[in-house]
């Protein structure tokens, strides 16, 4: 129970891009092997740009891990640990507890050290959800960032609990009878928020200022924080790699992936999309080949309309939680 929200506690520092661009921040070195247009390195970059103290990073198995640390090379300019697929939250818990004990017992110098875990949607929504829940419930002082590219992209684009309805993946193909994934994705943000941790938020690489502000809040919390980062994958989504940021914008403008935070139980929209500006979800779907079967050879109005209805329903739910009235 906290009476003051993180937003009230944490004095907001202005984000000065020009200065930040020249600051030496330990981020990913150039030359990592992630695909052109992949948003995952941007997720790492914006997260690390928000840090003010030294950080230890953890990755679960996935694209980010395999592409940044091919032995004997590493792109990480900060201590980095990988263990397995489903346990980034548990490994981060262990690091946090270890540092805490060692500092308390004066075995290492006392200094604030961020523990930040990066994991994809597979490692978060599906196989890692138990470890995540445990870490959130125990309230370790760590920040868990899920970069959601909405499928098991690293193993070859298989569907996950985060894959959108109707999307074609290699295990939910746009078939003749079943046109893509028949299920809607699970709401991992609400699941995280249901643990009553101090800070949970969604971020998006097309909104870097909002992104950095939220990571700063997450790091300021002395509880476990959960961040959902929308992270386009040109390869898996069959999208042009130059469109990553545009697709990320559309995700917010269509209200499919809204930007909000849950700060000590209070839901707050951080990017309001007015009714008249709300882009039809079809515009988002059209940018990506994973939805191509919904438009060609025959238009699947049923799937497109159901997606729109679902987005509208989720958006209204969120507005109610945030206490926002749509005129």
């Amino acid at each position, binding site marked *: 129970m906290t009476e003051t929200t993180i937003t009230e506690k944490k004095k907001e520092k202005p984000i000065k891009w020009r200065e930040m661009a020249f600051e030496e921040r*330990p981020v990913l070195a150039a030359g990592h092997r992630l695909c052109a247009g992949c948003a995952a390195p941007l997720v790492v970059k914006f997260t690390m740009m928000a840090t003010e103290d*030294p*950080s*230890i990073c*953890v990755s679960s198995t996935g694209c980010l*891990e*395999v592409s940044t*640390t*091919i*032995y*004997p090379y*590493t792109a*990480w*300019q*900060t*201590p*980095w*640990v*990988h*263990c*397995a697929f*489903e*346990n980034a*939250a*548990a*490994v*981060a*818990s*262990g*690091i*946090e*507890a*270890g*540092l*805490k*004990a*060692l500092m*308390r*017992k004066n*075995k*290492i110098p006392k200094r604030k*050290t961020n523990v930040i875990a990066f994991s994809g949607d597979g490692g978060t929504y599906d196989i890692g959800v*138990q*470890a995540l*829940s*445990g870490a959130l*419930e*125990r309230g370790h002082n760590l920040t868990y960032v899920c970069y959601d590219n909405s499928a098991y992209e690293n193993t070859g684009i298989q569907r996950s609990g985060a894959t959108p309805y109707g999307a074609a993946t290699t295990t939910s193909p746009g078939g003749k009878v079943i046109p893509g994934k028949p299920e809607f994705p699970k709401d991992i943000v609400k699941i995280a928020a249901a643990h009553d941790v101090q800070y949970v938020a969604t971020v998006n690489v097309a909104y870097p200022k909002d992104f950095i502000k939220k990571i700063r809040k997450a790091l300021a919390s002395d509880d476990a924080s959960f961040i959902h980062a929308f992270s386009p994958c040109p390869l898996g989504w069959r999208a042009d790699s130059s469109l990553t940021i545009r697709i990320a914008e559309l995700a917010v403008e269509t209200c499919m992936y809204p930007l909000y935070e849950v700060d000590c139980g209070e839901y707050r929209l951080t990017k309001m999309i007015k009714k008249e500006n709300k882009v039809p979800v079809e515009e988002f779907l059209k940018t990506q080949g994973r939805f191509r079967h919904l438009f060609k050879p025959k238009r699947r109005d049923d799937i497109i309309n159901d997606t729109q209805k679902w987005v509208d329903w989720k958006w209204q739910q969120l507005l109610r939680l945030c206490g926002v009235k749509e005129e």
Partner: protein
Amino acid sequence: MGEIVGMTGDESIAHAVKLCDPDVIAAYPITPQTIMVERLADFVYDGELDSEFIPVESEHSAMSCCYGSSIAGARVFTASASQGIALMFEILFIVSNARLPVVMGVANRALSAPINIHAGLEDQLVCRDTGWISIFCHDCQSAYDTTIMAFKIAEDKEVSLPLMYGIDAFIISHALEGVETLEKREVEDFLPPRDPLYVLDPDDPISVGSLALQDSYYELKYAQEQVMINSMKTIKKVQEEFGELTGRYYNVINTYYAEDADVILVTQGAITGTARTVVDRYRRQGKKLGLAQVHVYRPFPEKELRDALKGAKVAATIDRSITFGAPGPILYSDVKVTTSNGGPIIQGFIAGLGGRDVRIEDIAKVADRAFETAKTGEEPSKISWVGVRGVEF
């Protein structure tokens, strides 16, 4: 030297862990390991032990937390059994490859199915390929002593490997015995603070857990195996030092009347104690029976075992484990390979699965069968199951 205190196997481990002052304990409850964790929780919650106690949501996370804490530089303890070890199996390999001296107490329990909570060593034996040092204790005192030696062996910079050590479910874990304890000061002198092989220093960053493909994985595994083989030296050194401190000398193979024996029983865990009683009885009758307890199981003490068995005609292995469809059970196979270039006939026995009582008369039957083999000199063609109902022994 401390006093003699009545403790169960689980309690003796918890009390010894307390003396070793771990920084982090991450564990999930499973029968019959629970008392280890409960006592440690008591110590932490009563302020007697300054550790971070992580009450994880699964054994998988227990081992994952241990991985993280150990990388952070902490002294780490966990405990588990049976299904718990099966669940953390994946992470065991990763912890050893990262050279992390995590210490794990195991209450050796039969694996499901059918579900059973009683003794079986297969939970720890199947970890033989994980790269962990593996030790089997035979009573509460050895559980207590092994705990203290475990941290020193595992954390030795030449070793820096994880270590698991087991006590038979209930037979030791819940049996009350007198345990000669050590003073806090004695353990502090014996066990230096952990000096990690590497640290996560933001000023000097390293990456741990990289992707290593065809060009490097092979060499890395070779290097890991060298560390495991070399750890035997440290294990013996620590056993020697512990003997000097306490007068209780342990060996990687503990022998009993083995020197002139015609038949040697090869055991692990709690069965060892019963087997000693059988040896005593047979010796009183003038029969040359001896015992070799495989105390340290990984790295496997090949030379020491060969030395122990060299004068015998038959070595009878008693496995409290099963591996299906294999040429023989796990301990038997290791003993057989170790002596394949000469040595006694190896006769394999399985006994006591799922905590079935292994009585003095059962082990006497094993000894009698082995003496028959010694007489005929004929290698037996099959593994015998001791006391399994409906099957002729």
